[in-house]
C-alpha cells in the first residue's frame, strides 16, 4: 500500500486561538495524508471557521477528502461544507466532537458516502432529522452524546443504513418508539442519562435488527414491556 503523508505546519489562518492579546500564538501542524483517500486532521487548533480549501496547507493535489477531523475546535456551523462541495462530497468520516455547533443542518448539501459522524459535546440544541437520512443515506455510526438535544424534533424520515446511534446525556423527556421503525438497520441505541419518563407510541415500534438499547439513568417508573418485546 502506498501512503503519502504530508506534515505541514498550519498557516496563520489556522492559528485563531483564544489566546489573550499579546500572548504568543501557538500553532500546531495539521496533517494531510493520503491513505486510501485523502484525510485531513486539524484537531485542537482553535478554529472558528474552516477556510476555503485553497488556503489550506495541504497540497492542492489533495482532492476528494474521505476523512476530516476537526475535533476540539470552535466551529459553530457546517457552512464550510458548501465552500467546496467537490472536496467534501466524498467524505466517509467526519469528526466534529467538542466544537460549538448548536444547530446541525446539512442544508442543501449531501454526503452520499458518509459512514461515521461524530458530533459529541457540541452544546447542540437542534438537529434537522427530516432530511438527514436522504442527505447521508450510507451513515452507519452517529455520535450525538453529551449535547442538549430535547428529542427527535420534527418529522423523521429515517436513516436506512444506521446501525449505531449514541444519544446519551442529552435532554430527552420522552422516547418516541416510532423512531425505530425508521431505522431498519439499527443494532445499538443509547439514550441513557436523559430525562426520559415516557416511552411513547410503542404500538408503532418495529425493529428487526435491534440488539441493544440502553435506557439507564432516566426517570421511567415502569418497565416498558411492549417495547422490550419488540421482535
Amino acid at each position: 500500500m502506498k501512503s503519502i503523508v504530508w506534515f505541514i505546519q498550519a498557516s496563520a489562518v489556522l492559528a485563531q486561538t483564544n489566546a489573550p492579546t499579546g500572548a504568543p500564538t501557538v500553532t500546531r501542524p495539521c496533517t494531510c495524508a493520503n491513505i486510501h483517500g485523502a484525510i485531513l486532521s486539524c484537531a485542537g487548533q482553535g478554529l472558528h471557521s474552516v477556510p476555503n480549501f485553497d488556503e489550506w496547507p495541504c497540497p492542492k493535489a489533495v482532492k476528494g477528502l474521505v476523512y476530516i477531523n476537526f475535533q476540539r475546535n470552535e466551529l459553530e456551523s457546517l457552512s464550510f461544507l458548501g465552500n467546496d462541495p467537490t472536496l467534501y462530497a466524498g467524505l466517509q468520516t467526519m469528526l466534529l466532537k467538542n466544537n460549538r455547533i448548536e444547530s446541525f443542518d446539512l442544508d442543501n448539501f449531501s454526503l452520499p458516502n458518509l459512514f461515521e459522524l461524530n458530533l459529541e459535546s457540541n452544546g447542540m440544541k437542534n438537529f434537522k432529522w427530516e432530511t438527514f437520512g436522504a442527505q447521508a443515506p450510507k451513515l452507519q455510526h452517529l455520535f450525538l452524546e453529551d449535547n442538549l438535544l430535547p428529542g427527535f424534533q420534527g418529522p423523521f424520515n429515517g436513516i436506512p443504513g444506521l446501525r449505531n446511534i449514541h444519544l446519551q446525556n442529552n435532554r430527552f423527556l420522552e422516547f418516541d418508539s416510532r423512531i425505530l421503525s425508521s431505522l431498519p438497520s439499527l443494532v445499538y441505541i443509547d439514550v441513557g442519562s436523559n430525562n426520559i419518563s415516557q416511552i411513547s407510541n410503542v404500538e408503532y415500534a418495529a425493529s428487526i435488527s435491534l440488539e441493544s438499547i440502553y435506557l439507564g439513568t432516566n426517570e421511567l417508573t415502569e418497565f416498558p414491556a411492549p417495547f422490550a418485546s419488540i421482535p
Partner: protein
Amino acid sequence: MRDNLIENLDSMAGQNFSNLEDLDLGFNKLSNSNGMATANFDGLVGLILEGNKLTEFPASLSSIPSLKRLYLRENLIENLDSMVGLSFSNLIKLEIASNKLTNLNGMVSANLSGLEELDVNDNEELHDVDILTAAELPSLSYFLVGNSTMIGCSCKGFEFFQRFVNSNENTCELYTVKTDSWDECDLSVVSKSCSPTTSPTPSPSASPTTSSPTILNEEQLSTGAIAGIAVGGVAVVALGVGMAVFMSGKSAATAGTSVTAKLDPTDV
C-alpha cells in the same frame, strides 16, 4: 433500564421477551420481581437486579433455563429459602453480596450444579456457610465470602474453603490474610490443612510483586483493600471486608496470570 424509578414489574406479566438476552434493571426501586413469573424469558442469559429492594430470592427465575448470570447484590434478601427444591442448573455466576443473608440453607436442596462463581460477601449476619459442600456446588471455582461474623476466630470459613480445594485436588499456597477478625485465628492450623506448593511460611516482604489478578473485578481492585494474595492454582485474596477464594485451575487459567504476594509481618 438501570438507574430508573421502576417499582414493580407488573407490566411484564404474560409478555413475550424471548428475544432478550441481557436485562439490566439494577438500581431501581423493585421490592419484588413478581411480574417476571408469567412472562417468557426463554432466551435470557444475564439478569441484573442489583441495587433494588428485593427481600427474597426471585424463585421464578428457575423457569428460565437459559439464565447463566444473576446479579442480586445490594438488595435486602434475608435468606434463600425460596430456592429450595428448584433447579438453576445452568446458572454459572451468582452474586448476592451486600444483602441481609443470615444463612445459605436454601442452596442445599437447590440444583446449582453448574455454578462456578458465588459471591455472598458482605452479608454481615451470615453464618454456617459450611453447610454447603462440594457435593452441592460441584462446579464452584470462585467463592467470595467473608465477614467478621462468619470467620470469627475459629477459622470455620477457611476450613470450608479447604474442603473445596481438596475436592478439586488442587494444591494450596497459603499465606496469611488480614481481616479485622483474624487476629485470634490459629493460622498454623489453617496452614496444615493445605498442601503448600512452595514456602508455607509467609515471606516478610513488601506489597504484592505481581501481575494484576485480573479475575478480580474493578470494584474489588479499586477498594485498595487487598491485603494479601497467594496463587498457585489456588488464590486466597483478603479484602477489607472479606475474602475471595479461587479454587480450581480453571480460575487461575482464566486469570491468565501468576500472582505472588508477600505480606508484611505486621499485617499478620
